[in-house]
């Protein structure tokens, strides 16, 4: 399910990113994709904190999940840009 805007309309100076949830995290929150506004200069950790406040059961998401930005594994301090796609990845299980 795609939730177009779970946060208030962004102020002019904000950036807007898409957050995606997978597997257990998507089950937990009941959503797979969230559009979210962040302050300019926001980093991955800020997005995670915002998601934990705003999505259903967000407080059950880990504080330090595995995260990808634009299809690449990313660190907590990676800066975000308008239009980025950030994914919260549950513990991996490929193979």
């Amino acid at each position, binding site marked *: 399910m795609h939730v177009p805007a779970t946060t208030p309309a962004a102020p002019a100076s904000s950036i807007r990113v898409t957050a995606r949830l997978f597997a257990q995290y998507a089950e937990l929150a009941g959503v797979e994709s969230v559009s979210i506004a962040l302050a300019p200069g926001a980093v991955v950790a800020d997005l995670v904190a915002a998601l934990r406040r705003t999505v259903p059961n967000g407080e059950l998401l880990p504080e330090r999940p595995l995260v990808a930005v634009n299809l690449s594994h990313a660190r907590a301090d*990676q800066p975000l840009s308008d239009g980025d796609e950030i994914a919260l990845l549950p513990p991996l299980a490929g193979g």
Partner: protein
Amino acid sequence: MTRQPIEPLGLLRRVGGPGLGAVTLFVGLVRRSAEDGPVAAIEYTAYEAMLAAEWERIFAEAEQRWPELRVAACHRLGVVPVGEASIAVAAAAPHRAEAFAACRYVIEEAKRRLPVWKQEIFDDGTRRWRANQAAGPEAVPPQGGEGWGSPSF
């Protein structure tokens, strides 16, 4: 990635070449074992766009490390019954040492980095999410910058 059964022979053919004297193939299969209980199948899901990108990055790393290498791999998604393959990696190189090393490298990186998740499906239909060992954030190489925890790279 594929939702169909993996064809190892197709992978082997994709890596062949006239100067390559050694091919290794790894196939990971859904197994049933005493410690895991009565698993009938595993359902794999993925962040598919990233899965493709991550495979390409792993291949590029391997080809940089072993310049004459040819590598191909495949992860099956969807429900995979016990005894069927969930992942396969083929590597061809001039000599066997590189072919073994490269195949091992690719499967280890795949397990560590591919955005894939699995649910065990038991004989009674119940399901359980399972993760690979050591598959936390610190196990995955980020693309630069400082991370949480204690990254081992």
